[in-house]
């Protein structure tokens, strides 16, 4: 049984993590100068990143419990509390959110020239909401953060996006909103079923009856599957990615779409384990379809960003495949792959952003042979490409390998199809790299391409480092998440051990 271990640091670390960026957004409202806005936003995001150091160093990975807990009554009439805490499943995502936000602010330094202050306000507000999502241990609080994310992301795509940004922004907003509101009704139903509580930990221990689980699972699924996005709810993603500014794409790919998978792990599995078991074949099937379909679509793209967007669909298929294998390999592999995908796809979008800022084209055919002109960039892109493919020694390998291990135990055929996806992934990514970097320069505009500058290298370096750290020493991540993941799997299996009849229950008791 999970507990909320109260925070013993002497300062409210988690609340600071939520409210530092929010405070930054408020401070920025008073700033007029664009350059000052950039520096202040960077400063706040660095403070936030700094706060992640005590978070990670003080986190006890041997415990499955929620740590640094804070709980304050908020709306007592509805039994709603401001309750936050992190466990091994969420703590890494908090850190990843802080890192990717800082990187996003850095890559937007010169790319965003219009309404800089508003852009930075949106980024910091988004950061506060994202981090809140990963920490919230009260369903109401969770939903507040979950929905609040929509506002800045909608504005990021709609205001600073590409030519077709309006369509993409509205599509993103409506798709996710429809899914979310259905979850809201399910949250309410869960609240009444469990006797009037939104407390996530209490709900994890509550056993809902089977039919109820099916309905509630389906409603939560509507919210999370759209966010992941799982096939066939993915159609908003390519549009949103293509039109979003670089920073928006990095956050979208790195964090936002992880939240769907996080929701499955945090809520759907422990709340509705029977329903999860019931729906597993369908979800596994959708996952492998996503893996193959995403890869297949990626082959056909002529747009740099769209290709990566479809590769995300494919990679997220791996994640859901791992999570719903419902064993600890699958789950841990899925969680790790979420981090990996955040790192590699975040880096890929960064790479696109860097080159787009120079050439203003995302059409792959406009490139070719740039490796000779921009060697640092080409090396960076190479590393990220290999990580995305899952070459041993990079982070992608560990994640995909563990997922396939987990899926194999569940049902071998899924593992086989998923492996096929890895091959396809290598195909389209290497082909992409070949078309962009190798050969002779075909486009005269690329003759005088400038290589990555110091700011861009500084933004890219942490991601490159993570690629190798996780790739070579994956235990760094596994040991943080292991206890929590293991506990979750046990919880799911314990709750699904429905004893068919009373006599068996009695005999089981007698046997013990």
């Amino acid at each position, binding site marked *: 049984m999970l507990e909320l271990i109260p925070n013993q640091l002497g300062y409210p670390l988690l609340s600071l993590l939520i409210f530092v960026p929010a405070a930054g957004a408020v401070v920025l409202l008073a700033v007029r100068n664009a350059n000052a806005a950039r520096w202040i936003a960077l400063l706040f995001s660095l403070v936030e990143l700094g706060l992640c150091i005590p978070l990670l160093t003080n986190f006890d990975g041997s415990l499955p419990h929620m740590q640094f807990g804070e709980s304050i009554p908020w*709306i007592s009439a*509805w039994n709603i509390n401001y309750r936050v805490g992190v466990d091994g499943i969420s703590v890494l995502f908090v850190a990843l959110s802080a890192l990717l936000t800082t990187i996003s602010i850095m890559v937007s330094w010169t790319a965003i020239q219009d309404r800089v202050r508003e852009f930075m306000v949106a980024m910091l507000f988004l950061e506060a909401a994202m981090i809140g999502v990963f920490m919230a241990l009260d369903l*109401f609080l969770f939903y*507040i953060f979950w929905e*609040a994310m929509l506002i800045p992301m*909608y504005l990021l795509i709609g*205001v600073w996006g590409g030519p077709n940004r309006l369509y993409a*922004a509205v599509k993103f907003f409506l798709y996710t909103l429809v899914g979310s509101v259905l979850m*809201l009704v399910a949250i309410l139903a869960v*609240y009444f079923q469990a006797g009037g509580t939104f407390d996530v930990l209490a709900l994890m221990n509550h056993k809902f009856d089977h039919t109820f689980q099916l309905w509630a699972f389906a409603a939560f699924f509507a919210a999370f599957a759209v966010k992941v996005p799982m096939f066939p709810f993915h159609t908003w993603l390519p549009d949103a990615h293509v039109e979003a500014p670089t920073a928006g794409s990095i956050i979208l790919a790195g964090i936002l779409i992880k939240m769907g998978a996080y929701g499955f792990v945090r809520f759907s599995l422990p709340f509705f384990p029977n329903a999860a078991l019931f729906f597993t074949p369908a979800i596994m099937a959708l996952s492998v379809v996503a893996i193959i379909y995403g890869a297949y679509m990626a082959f056909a793209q002529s747009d740099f960003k769209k290709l990566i967007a479809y590769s995300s669909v494919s990679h997220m298929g791996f994640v859901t495949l791992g999570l719903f294998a419902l064993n600890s390999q699958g789950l841990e592999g899925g969680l790790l792959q979420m981090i990996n995908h955040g790192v590699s796809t975040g880096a890929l979008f960064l790479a696109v952003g860097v080159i787009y800022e120079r050439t203003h084209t995302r059409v792959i055919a406009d490139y070719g042979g740039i490796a000779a002109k921009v060697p640092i960039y080409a090396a960076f892109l190479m590393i990220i490409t290999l990580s995305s493919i899952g070459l041993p020694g990079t982070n992608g390998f560990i994640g995909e390998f563990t997922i396939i291990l987990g899926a194999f135990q569940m049902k071998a055929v899924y593992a086989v199809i998923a492996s096929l996806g890895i091959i396809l992934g290598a195909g389209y990514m290497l082909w992409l790299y070949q078309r962009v970097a190798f050969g002779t320069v075909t486009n005269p505009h690329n003759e005088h391409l400038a290589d990555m500058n110091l700011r861009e290298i500084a933004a890219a370096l942490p991601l490159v480092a993570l690629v190798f750290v996780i790739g070579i020493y994956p235990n760094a991540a596994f040991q943080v998440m292991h206890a929590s993941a293991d506990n979750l799997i046990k919880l799911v299996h314990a709750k699904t051990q429905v004893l068919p009849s009373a006599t068996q229950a009695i005999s089981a008791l007698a046997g013990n």
Partner: protein
Amino acid sequence: MSITLQAFIKQLLPIYPEFVVLVMALTVLLLDLFVDRQHKAILGWYSFTGIAIAAYMTVKLMGVRGAFFDGTILLDPFASFFKLVFFLSCGLGILVSMKYLDIEDIHRGEYYSLMLFATSGMMLMAAAGDLIVLYLGLELMALSIYVLAGFMRRDSRSNEAGIKYLLLGAFSSAIMLYGMSLLYGMAGTTNLNGILVFLRGADLTNPVIFLAMVMLIVSFGFKVAAAPFHMWVPDVYEGAPTSVTAFMSAGPKVAGFAVLLRVFVHALEPVQSHSSDILAGLAVLTMAVGNVLALSQSNIKRMLAYSSIAHAGYALVGLAAATAQKSVVVDGAASVMLYVLIYAVMNMGAFAVVIMLRKAGARGEEISDFAGLGKTNKAAAFLMLIFLFSLTGIPPMAGFVGKFYIFKSAVQAGMVWLAVVGVIFSAISAYFYLRVIMLMYMYDPKEEFRPLQSPALALALAVAATAVIVIGVRPAEVLEFARASVAGLL
């Protein structure tokens, strides 16, 4: 036996707030004679002060409870809650009016007087313990607003709005009176408590009771702009002076819900098995009509008119929940009350921004007029963004808390289907609210133009925006207040 003046004044204690508002309404007319054209805003501030005094008295009277004047006037937390919401709408309404009336060249003392009369009518509606007083309050409110809607005498659309509202309003009043007379004919009393007592002992299969109930639903539905009795709303909202539209979209609708709650939760409690289903059906239809028709509007006032229909639909969901199950009465009724309070604030905020866009010459009502507002006037655009996200029901704005409570009550009452329908229409509504945000932030401005600005307007916007955010982030106190105020209803 003669009573002294002092004793008489003492007897009036329960209606002091109403009394103050009426006195102010009459004295505004007198003062009007001595204030010249350029300084009519003084009358606005004068009326505003009156509202503030009345609000203060209402708060002071909160401790007193009971039925007065032979049970025709009730003084209870329920009535007090609604009175405070009326003061809020009327106060905000006055604040957004002053500059606007100057621009439209219709700044006359009667305007404020009519607003105060309308407010006193609403107060009577909330406090009525008797069908007659209820009807009197309703007519006082409605007649004042008919005139206000047609206040731009030289504008044909405003005239049309006034006439249309008057004619359709008269029909609805007639239907209401018919329903009331049926009730009176059976119960032998117009007192709400008396009707409750009668219905408890009556044969509820009697079709006349059903008929009376339906007639009341129809006429109240007209006042709160529930579909299919909403036909007047878009034209009247569009034609009326924008400041009147702002007031009209909040005050009378809220008053309508006060009456709906008083009658259907309290007096007609025994027939709830029928009324709940009808109200639920009405809620679905209202949400559908409001949200779907709002999608295709190009005029911001018409769009907000349909949006206000939709919001009546959400509130009806709460009412349906309150009447569906005995155990949900408190939460259901409180959810409606909280919702209309939040709705009044956020909607008036949105209208205040619309008023800011009033251009000399053109009326600045096309949605496309919002293009580029995020560049030309950042503050106005940002406030509009807050109000529109609140109307959509996106946290952390108050609109979310309101909807959350409504749907929570629906689920609690076992009406999960109704909650699902509600949230889906709520998601659809995002589309037309987002369209305005999109225009403000994602399009370039068509031309340079200076929005209307005045201290009063700024104050109104500040109050509305602060309320929307504070209630959104910290709803506990307001929520407790709404829940405690239900007490008078049971």
